[in-house]
């Protein structure tokens, strides 16, 4: 059976309930409206004056680290490993695959040679499983990449880590191909 009731906007005011005389008594405060009066107020007051409000959209992560406008031409040369800024992972794994070791190494060498550069390692997961667990998994992946860079000599101060779990998929879709592309760490250079 399918029900399609009509929608009604509700503004909330106190609701009065009185029991019929010939029936059982209930506490009239049962529906005093306190619980339901709040949420609408939240829409009309509160953090509208907060300084953080009027920013423009930053957008999601661009697949190729699109914020790094000041990077050199080697970053856009497809034959240079620096042009690759995404490290992919196997299911439920945070191990950096052999294929991506040269990519991580190239960025590590670049960071060592350019100590004023700073990267954010953004860990991500596919959509399966629970969301907070996926946050943890994404962080574990980002930390694997960070460890590999540090072993090669990158200063910890050049690295930041954030995990978005499954909250920022690179591609939408519910199949293996989408999941593969979403299990990733993005190496994002901060603008200089």
């Amino acid at each position, binding site marked *: 059976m399918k029900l399609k009731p009509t929608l009604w906007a509700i503004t909330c005011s106190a609701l*009065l309930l009185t029991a019929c005389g010939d029936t059982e008594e209930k506490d009239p405060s049962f529906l005093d409206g306190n*619980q339901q009066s709040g949420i609408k107020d939240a829409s009309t007051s509160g953090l509208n004056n907060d300084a953080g409000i009027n920013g423009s959209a930053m957008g999601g992560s661009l697949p190729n680290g699109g914020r790094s406008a000041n990077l050199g031409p080697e970053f856009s040369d497809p034959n240079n490993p620096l042009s690759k800024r995404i490290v992919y992972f196997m299911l439920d794994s945070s191990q950096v695959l052999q294929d991506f070791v040269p990519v991580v190494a190239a960025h590590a060498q670049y960071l060592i040679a350019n100590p004023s550069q700073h990267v954010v390692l953004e860990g991500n997961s596919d959509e399966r499983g629970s969301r907070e667990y996926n946050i943890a998994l994404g962080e574990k992946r980002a930390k694997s990449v960070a460890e590999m860079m540090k072993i090669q000599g990158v200063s910890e101060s050049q690295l930041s880590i954030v995990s978005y779990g499954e909250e920022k998929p690179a591609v939408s879709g519910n199949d293996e191909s989408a999941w593969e592309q979403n299990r990733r760490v993005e190496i994002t250079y901060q603008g200089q």
Partner: protein
Amino acid sequence: MLLCGLHAPTPFAALSIEITEGTESALPVAVVPFAASGAPVDMSAVINADLQRTGYFKMLDQQAMPAQPSTLQEVNFKDWQAANQNYMVVGKVSPNGAQYDIQFQLLDVYKSGQLMGYRMTSSSNDLRRTAHHISDLIFEKLTGKKGSFSGRIAYITTSGGGHQLQVADADGFNPQTVASSTEPLMSPSWSPDGKRIAYVSFEHKSAAIYIQVLANGQRERVAEFPGINGAPAWSPDGTRLALTLSKDGSPDIYVLNLASRALLKLTKGYSIDTEPSWSPDGRSIVFTSDKGGKPQLYLVPSQGGEEKRLTFSGGYNSRGSFSPDGKYLAMVHGNGNDYRIGLMELASRTINVLTSGPDDESPSFAPNGGMILYASKKGGTAFLSAVSIDGKMQQKLVFSSGEVREPAWSP
């Protein structure tokens, strides 16, 4: 960047409710259309839908009703006995100035008398909520259990490139955005008094946990440590927040005392420990850990102490949450590519799988423990569903656009 207390009306993206699975052994109840002149809400239809989706009742179709009485005096009980009804609800809604007077009676068809009757007054805007309260009264009278119709649900949506924390009525109507950000929002958790919500926001490009007062939209940042600040869960007494922090390396479970801001670390080691949830008595916390290799559920005393593994079957058990009576744990139960909502009886440790997958997550109990709300994905769309704890009744809350996830049922 975050917008809170957004004034722009939330597009009424919701909603239709589809009853996707029913049960044969339900109690026959007829909610007779209320006599209503010009009321903007069909209250009897709201009550009928509320009762139907609990799975406890078999609602009589309007076409099959022998008559449409609106008071006890007008009822010919023999007709309703012949229609095999156990109970019926009659009522009327009449304008009274700017308000409406509502009267309803719950009748026992076989005893030919009234079980309960109320007269109440409501503003036009509150008619739907009033109908939900009537459903609560009827449900409790007929089942002895508290109804969950007049509560609210919080959930996260993604639309127009942004993320919103929304709060709606328990049936998904009247959605309102209470926080909005271009960066992800996650993991809403209600305070036990239903007045505040804790959630995770990435608005500064890193995770932080906020507590927001629903009444005025004001909020406070309670955790912004390096690394993960996630999975807030309010203690049943409202004084503490369990959460996940990775400031010491790997993600661990902590308890934050909201008054003193003292942090108690409950887990340690190199494993992922996350998704804390309190037992109703506040003594224990269930959490997800991969210390055995795969994510499984563990229990730890909320004051600290020895951990105990709870789940052994299935390769993936996560995001446990206690039923309000403390007898069950709902969880995400995964096998291979299939993630469903599982319900474990704590006494026997047996897990019943309640849903059909393949990507079900974020189970949240109704305050009466009778249903579990969860997020689901099928064919590229994300929606909320509810399932009765016996798995027999399924309903789907369909939102017309955008992704809807992480439902949390208010206390």
